[in-house]
């Protein structure tokens, strides 16, 4: 439909909504504070939707408890080769106390990077790592020395009530849950 024809349609539709407050749910005015507040970015994820993919991409697979969450090295605009004016991107350096190793040789603790969006507000689908929380992680050796990175968002499985949780729809969480109890063997099998 030509744009010029859409405008009256929109106007009529808006009027039919009685000023739009019910139909459209416009932003309500917030009394008091005018200070900007944090909000998470929206994301297109780099996906690995099968167990085979994450198992083949990983070099280290560990389960454990988060014992450290500190400021890590930012991804600088210079490193990223972004155009002038773009800021550095913050990262958190997470330390995991390892309780089970399913692939590779892990020390008692493993450190890995958690990248954040510009401004540093964690993404809703990839929340901050809470101290004391349990995680299953598929990691790759692409970080600075002795620091790992995840095989994307599909390489992170928070452990809730003893069960591995996926963070996005249509990921490998079901396959990982099904492999519980024989995860080491299933990973080895997937990598062959």
């Amino acid at each position, binding site marked *: 439909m030509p*744009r010029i024809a*859409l*405008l*009256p*349609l*929109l106007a*009529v*539709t*808006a009027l*039919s*909504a009685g000023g*739009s407050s019910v*139909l*459209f*749910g*416009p*932003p*309500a005015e*917030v009394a008091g*504070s*005018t*200070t*900007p*507040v*944090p*909000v*998470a*970015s*929206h*994301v*297109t*994820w*780099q*996906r690995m939707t099968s167990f085979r993919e994450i198992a083949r991409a990983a070099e280290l697979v560990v389960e454990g408890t988060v014992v450290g969450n500190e400021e890590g090295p930012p*991804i600088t*605009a210079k*490193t*990223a*080769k*972004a*155009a002038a004016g*773009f800021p550095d*991107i913050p990262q958190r350096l997470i330390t995991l106390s390892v309780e089970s190793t399913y692939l590779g040789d892990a020390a008692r603790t493993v450190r890995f990077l958690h*990248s954040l*969006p*510009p*401004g*540093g*507000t964690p*993404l809703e689908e*990839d929340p901050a790592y809470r101290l004391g929380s349990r995680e299953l992680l598929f990691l*790759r050796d*692409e*970080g600075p020395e002795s620091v790992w*990175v995840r095989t*994307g*968002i599909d390489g992170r499985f928070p452990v809730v009530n003893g069960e591995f949780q996926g963070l*996005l*729809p*249509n990921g490998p969480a079901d396959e990982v849950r099904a492999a519980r109890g024989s995860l080491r063997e299933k990973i080895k099998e997937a990598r062959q």
Partner: protein
Amino acid sequence: MPRTLLAALVALVVGGIAPHLASAGHWWMNGSGNVVHLNRGHFPALSFFNNATNGSATALEHARGEWSANFAVDVYNVSGPADITAWDGYWGATGWAGLATPVTNAAGAGTVHPDGHVDSMWVQVNMSYGVGSSYASQKAIGCQEIGHAIGGQLHDGGGCMGFGYFNFDPNVAAARSPTAHDFDHLQHLWGGLH
């Protein structure tokens, strides 16, 4: 106005299109329960600065053009500060291939005003992944992130607003473009704001 067009408009409104779209609404909300949005009135023109310098500029321009051509709001090119600025870069193994980030002048990236409005939006394409060599991926990512920047939300409709969530192959043409649902959604959003 031609009589046929007028009749069509009346039929659409009276016939229930509005409730249908209202039920399909799922907005980008801030913590105060307000819609995150650029603050440009009911039928705005949104300026777009394509500041991608690492190879995705063409795909981003095509994505901008598709939204603008079919959307009741112009998304027009400028060569400096804009409502929406697109960037690309090699941000590494972050996990994300694209981002849309609200920006307020007072507090910078990742912030909104308490009523949900933002001063500008940033769109990013991460060239560190396979997207670096694929126009198709850049287009799908650019389409989704520009869509977010102008108010679009994720849905499982086969288009770019479901790319990476519900559909995964950027070589399928539909995955690189908005759908009719997206345009309906945005027209409601912009018609209802302010």
